[in-house]
């Protein structure tokens, strides 16, 4: 079974600074996807960034980037120029490849990291 571990229950960062959230995972699959989701107090789970395991290049989305180390099964999220609106719970998630419309899109989540942004 796949597992996702987030070892930092809480993190804090000064506004405009950079912070890195850690995630490790365990799988025997070779094709899979990794995600970072943001969950603000409103509870809506929002996709921040996606990484396909077959791509060596690290994904980036504006101020958000990842460091994907497939051999080490590590997937960290870097937030640059942190803003007050970045304060939220961040969840790392894993999904195996699904090869058909009926395939499983089951996400396995870590326990999350609560990020606080200090003005």
């Amino acid at each position: 079974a796949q597992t996702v571990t987030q070892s930092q229950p809480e993190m804090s960062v000064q506004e405009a600074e950079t912070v890195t959230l850690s995630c490790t995972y365990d799988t025997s699959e070779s094709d899979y996807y990794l995600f970072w989701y943001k969950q603000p107090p409103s509870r809506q789970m929002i996709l921040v960034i996606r990484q396909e395991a077959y791509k060596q290049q690290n994904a980036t989305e504006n101020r958000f980037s990842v460091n994907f180390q497939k051999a080490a099964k590590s997937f960290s999220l870097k937030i640059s120029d942190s803003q007050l609106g970045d304060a939220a719970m961040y969840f790392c998630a894993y999904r195996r490849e699904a090869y058909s419309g009926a395939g499983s899109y089951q996400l396995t989540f870590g326990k999350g990291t609560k990020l606080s942004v200090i003005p």
Partner: protein
Amino acid sequence: DAGVTQSPTHLIKTRGQQVTLRCSPKSGHDTVSWYQQALGQGPQFIFQYYEEEERQRGNFPDRFSGHQFPNYSSELNVNALLLGDSALYLCASRGYWGGAAGNEQFFGPGTRLTVL
């Protein structure tokens, strides 16, 4: 274009009762998944529906059941409620277009269930 919607927003039940939660997927989406998120935890997969059938199931007892309708909306039913069923229940939908763009799941705002 409305996103994923869920109803009700909040719900309070007592032990032993039954509850039904509802989800309408994002327009064009045909796959619905349900997740349970206990306080302070990450979401846990309950099951997934596609073409009105349960396709995948997580480690949840038979007290948890579901249904998907022809319009792709879905219901989650929980029987014989326990105190431990108190959680945020999230619905996620996905459309199949293939490729990376088709792999994103969109989540609804959730239903907060409290069992007393």
